[in-house]
């Protein structure tokens, strides 16, 4: 079957979003809605553009897109209100023998 290639390897925009990098890390961030003040600090520092403050009716808090989160922990580290905790993914949990 023929594949299509673009002239001179020119690429369309935003194709990277087809790549789900959410499975890269060992940890994942969990936002405490109660503590979150929607200050957007995490949003500004996230290197993977995958945490965003969203509105839910009267509520506003940071939401993580786990499709892309690589679990670097920057959001948790910069949160001025300690509203984000990094947790180990279940798959890495095992009972010590």
């Amino acid at each position: 079957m023929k594949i299509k290639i673009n002239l001179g390897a020119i690429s369309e925009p935003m194709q990277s979003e087809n790549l789900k990098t959410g499975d890269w890390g060992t940890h994942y961030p969990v936002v405490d809605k109660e503590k979150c003040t929607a200050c957007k600090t995490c949003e500004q520092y996230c290197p993977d553009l995958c945490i965003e403050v969203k509105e839910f009716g009267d509520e506003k808090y940071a939401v993580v897109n786990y499709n892309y989160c690589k679990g670097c922990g920057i959001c948790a580290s910069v949160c001025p209100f300690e509203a984000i905790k990094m947790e180990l993914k279940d798959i890495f949990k095992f009972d010590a023998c």
Partner: protein
Amino acid sequence: MKYFGSGHGACPGCGLPIAVKTVLNLLDGKVFAVNSTGCLEIISSQYGKNAWNVPYIHSLFENAAAVAAGVEAALRALKRKDEGHVVVFAGDGATADIGIGTLSGAFDRNHDILYICLDNEAYQNTGHQQSGLTPPGESTTTTPAGKVLPGKVGRKKDMISIAVAHGIPYVASSSVGYVSDIRRKVKKAVKFEGAKYIQIHSPCVTGWGIDGSIAIKVARLAVETGLYPLVEFEYGKLTSVRKIKDRKPVEEYLKLQRRFRHLFTHEKGREMIETLQRFADENAERYGLDLKRE
């Protein structure tokens, strides 16, 4: 609107996408991005996996400034200047070493471009080799700490002064540790017609040997110790400095990073730490970094 996509290939905790998205967002995507070969290029511009949502070009390692000059000239000739700003994203090696010729040319001709040097202090893309912007005392694969040598000897090239010496309208240093500082400086820079240079300190988790979770902390410590002063020049005149309250000893910054770890055990390590402290002190003196109590 997102101008830089998720799913790019940067290491978890990489500083580069933070700087890039901050710049692109601030300029509302009205950007012609010119990128030199390096980490950023590799993580964002694989064929078919492009992370950019602005017109983007990568040509070679050492010619981003010239390519940007060409883009800018074309926009001028074609009366399309209002489409956006020409912004270079180049690494420290591409800027201070191999590409300094084309950089100097573009500054000399004062092309209307914003040149952003993403300074992670070594050739990190190829596995942490020293560049002109690698600080002394850093162990890289081409300046390894050995029985005799304590990592890189010499200095970190003063690109800020080199840029200022070209007489371009705007020169600044900033840091991924302070995205609001990046925003403020980019906003100011693009108001100037002509060449602008912003050097942004950007942590590299693998090269520096740090965990992503402390990347921002480490970046801020570089500023808080005086090793990476955040300054601003307009038409060659120092116009602003980020003051430091209770400047921290450089050891606090160094001890967190694998690249400097040997300094605490090496025979010449102490001497090197003192040298780095002296550089920080000199920076403080030169730019008046210390916030004096009334």
